[in-house]
């Protein structure tokens, strides 16, 4: 009635807005089951039967990227795209939301991790000291602290992933389909899960066998604390030997390994020779997109391959 009266009596002439309805994308960056709950013995069995507990995980997250590589206008959003530039523990999670998107496919989805700078803030499960720890010295964008147990042996693993050598840009996120689809007037949720088990894989493959033997064997100073420096001190060949030695029955020294490893080889075309670099390279395979997918494609927004 009101509108009819208005239309009849008053010459309102502002034209209608033809803008298309808008939708939203939500990306929940969180820990995988192994990151949240740790790795029970069954994950390593029957190879070396360690149990791993996760004590602390920090990710320096820059932002999720959405779009279409050859169409920069596509998937542009309104607002802040919160929350970006944050250091957080994936076990507590971080959610980034993009609003004001037109309903369309955004085939090129990725995310960027970056060592913290002055604009980075501590997020869930992180402190300002954590931000500084990642930023100072050789800047890093991830930190993993674990405890590994087997019989009476207990090791602490403290791995700091420096940005210079560790993959930090993850593109081509693909699950059932490549990228994500924006639906008008709805929020579409995707997940990016960080899996710490990736670092124990014997090959650069998300389905590879997990082994802790090379880590235990890398403890050169026998302080029961394993650092990235110690991993950098052994070669891949040594790591393979350590992996095999770990499966030799301790009651039969000198016997053949029960489950010998054929892993710890660099990826084709790679020049990786050190175990530390091999573990760093696993970062690229440490994220799952929408549970079973991955983000191992091109860099977000470029046609460049990941480092």
């Amino acid at each position: 009635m009101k509108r009819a009266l208005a239309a009849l009596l008053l010459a309102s002439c502002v034209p209608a807005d033809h803008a298309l309805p808008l939708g939203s994308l939500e990306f929940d960056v969180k820990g995988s089951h192994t990151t949240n709950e740790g790795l029970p013995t069954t994950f390593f069995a029957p190879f070396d039967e360690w149990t791993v507990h996760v004590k602390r995980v920090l990710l320096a997250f820059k932002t999720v990227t959405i779009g279409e590589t050859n169409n920069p206008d596509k998937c542009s959003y309104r607002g802040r795209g919160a929350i970006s530039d944050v250091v957080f523990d994936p076990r507590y999670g971080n959610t980034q939301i993009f609003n004001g998107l037109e309903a369309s496919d955004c085939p090129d989805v990725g995310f960027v991790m970056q060592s913290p700078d002055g604009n980075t803030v501590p997020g869930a499960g992180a402190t300002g000291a954590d931000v500084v720890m990642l930023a100072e010295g050789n800047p890093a964008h991830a930190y993993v602290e674990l405890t590994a147990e087997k019989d009476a042996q207990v090791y602490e693993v403290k791995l700091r992933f420096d940005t210079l050598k560790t993959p930090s840009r993850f593109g081509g996120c693909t699950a059932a389909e490549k990228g994500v689809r924006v639906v008008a007037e709805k929020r579409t949720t995707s997940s990016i899960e960080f899996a710490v088990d990736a670092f124990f894989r014997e090959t650069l493959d998300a389905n590879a066998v997990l082994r802790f033997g090379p880590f235990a064997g890398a403890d050169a100073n026998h302080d029961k604390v394993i650092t990235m420096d110690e991993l950098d001190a052994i070669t891949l060949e040594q790591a393979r030997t350590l992996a095999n030695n770990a499966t030799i029955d301790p009651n039969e020294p000198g016997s053949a390994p029960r489950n010998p490893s054929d892993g710890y080889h660099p990826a084709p075309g790679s020049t990786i020779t050190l175990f530390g670099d091999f573990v760093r390279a696993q970062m690229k395979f440490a994220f799952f997109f929408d549970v079973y997918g991955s983000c191992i494609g091109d860099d977000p927004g470029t046609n460049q391959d990941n480092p």
Partner: protein
Amino acid sequence: LLRSTLFPLASAIFACLVGLVGATTPAYAQTQTTDGQSLGPEEVTVRGVKDLRGGASEDSLARAEVRQLPGAFGDPWRAVEITPGFTPVLSGIPYFYVRGAPPGNVGYYFDGVRVPYLFHFGLGPAVVQPSLIARTDIHKGGYPATLGRWAGGIVDATAMPPQEQAHGEGVFRAIDAGGLIEVPFANGKGSALAGGRYSYTAALFTLLASDTTLDYRDYQARIAYAFTDRDSVSLLVFGAYDNATQKELADPQALAAQSGGSVDPSKLPQTRIERTLFSSEFHRADLRWDHTFASGGQTRVAATLGFDRTRVEARRDGDDLMTGFRASIEKPIVKQLIVNVGADVTIDQFGGSPLPAYADDDDIVARQQKIFAERTDYAAGGWVDAIIRPLPEMMVRPGLRYDVFGSGSAQAKALDPRLSARFDATKKLRFFHAYGVATQPPSTPVLLPGITIANLEGGLQRSVQTSGGVEADLPEDFTATVSVFHNAFFGLNDALGTAQVELTDIEKSQTLLAKSRGSAYGLEVGARRKLSRKLTGLVAYTLSRSIRTQDNHDFVSGYDRTHVATLVASYDLGRNWRVGGRYVFYTGVPIARNVPQFPEQAVGQPPERTPFFHRLDLRLEKRWRVGKSGWVAFVAEALNATLSREVTGYRCARELIFPGVTSAPGCVERVVGPISVPSIGVEGGF
């Protein structure tokens, strides 16, 4: 001698008495009467030379003054910034703090009808033809009880009364043209008026094959008829339209999705859609009956119908169907007493499309859904106002106003007492006082058609306004005023003053709906010289401080400017040439200290204030007389001819604090502009 000593004393006692009953600081407001004058070939007739009913609380600008003000482009509403007490938000942007009250608390009226916005696209030409405005009264506080519902100032433009002779005016400028014509009929008993402005910017953009459209226009019409010597009816219709859109190629997938997803996007033809960037319009129709009593006094009964609409990006749309009725009667009871009684009701039916979910950041959507909510608002009130003149040199004007506000299911009431007085110590020396309480529903930072905060969120805004001062006629046709004011604000919606963030970031802050308390006090100095002199001009200076309190934290208002000064000079060069300049100077705005987000973060610290700003506006006019009463003028004018740029804030670096390392991040200035408006045009009239 007796009076010259008695009235200052009486004035001081008056101020003290009022101070005892609630006001805190005696303050002042001034009046500026306008005398008839001859300005070269332009005959200026000013009506209502001296407002005998009041004059204690308002400044007035006559058309001739406004026309000669460089940088005002002849717009009375833009010219109000020369009034002491007006503090600009940003140079060239016609939104002001008035004695500490934010722009959203300053109401604008045209001939008694509320106007939702004043300028096309916020900073363009006025939405009402300047030639239709005879006088602009600027009430900065303690105004008569006949006015209300604004916690700050009120700018009330009075329409030129119906004329007995045909007349017209027109202006052609580079971007628009406007004009007005009025023709009497029925032997002068009636008159018909039509006017408007049309911009050719849309055509220019089309010629340039631009995807952006920028278009504005406005219209005014009035028909008046006096059916007896004492009775007249008139219908005033006016409105304005602004539209900025952008055409773009639609994403076929998005189009297909809009049609339910049943269409193959690859088979859709290329489609261009027009996206609204900003559109607004308002329309008003005001029908009134005026009656003059044989025994003196007058009454007015009026009904107003209005429609407002604003569309902004992201499919936000607010509209308002307004209906209003008002009646007032002004009657002299005895020679020394005039009583003014009135009542009015305004009903606003707000509608439109609330900001849809996911159209913007979730917190912005949540806040704006409160603003764009569909509901019915109303304001009903009554007032009584008396003008008491116990002596010819003394006027006291008490008043009382009662309003009931409703929005959705929320309701609130307000009782606003007012009191003003004027003491003429001598023919050349006058003392003024104005005190009052003013109440307003919640408001947005600036006025937009069809958009206000819904459901009286956070409650009413209130201010206690006090002012007082002195006005003196000086030699050489100078008039000078000095005044002080002190206002207190409660429940204020002052997003601009409290956000402590950049203007463009306010939408993202909680301050859009937040409430604050505050106070403002200051000194205002003004001096003018009559227009009839060869060299004329004015000086306006305001020294003030504006404080806000929010969450038990006191701080200086975001747009507190300690010094605001304007110097205007206009000189008659002879042979109908007139040149003028306006120099504007003001202090920068305070900048809040940056607070680190966590202990290990260092943030650059900006200066306490932005640098002072100054600019120069220029105007050059040449007039020719045409026939007996016609005239044509060439006018070249520029606002900010010096292309001054204004610092609005600082962008400060953030760094992490590493152990043993000293960190000192810096800041860089955020600069706006130069906001400069050049204008060349031809004006004419008869």
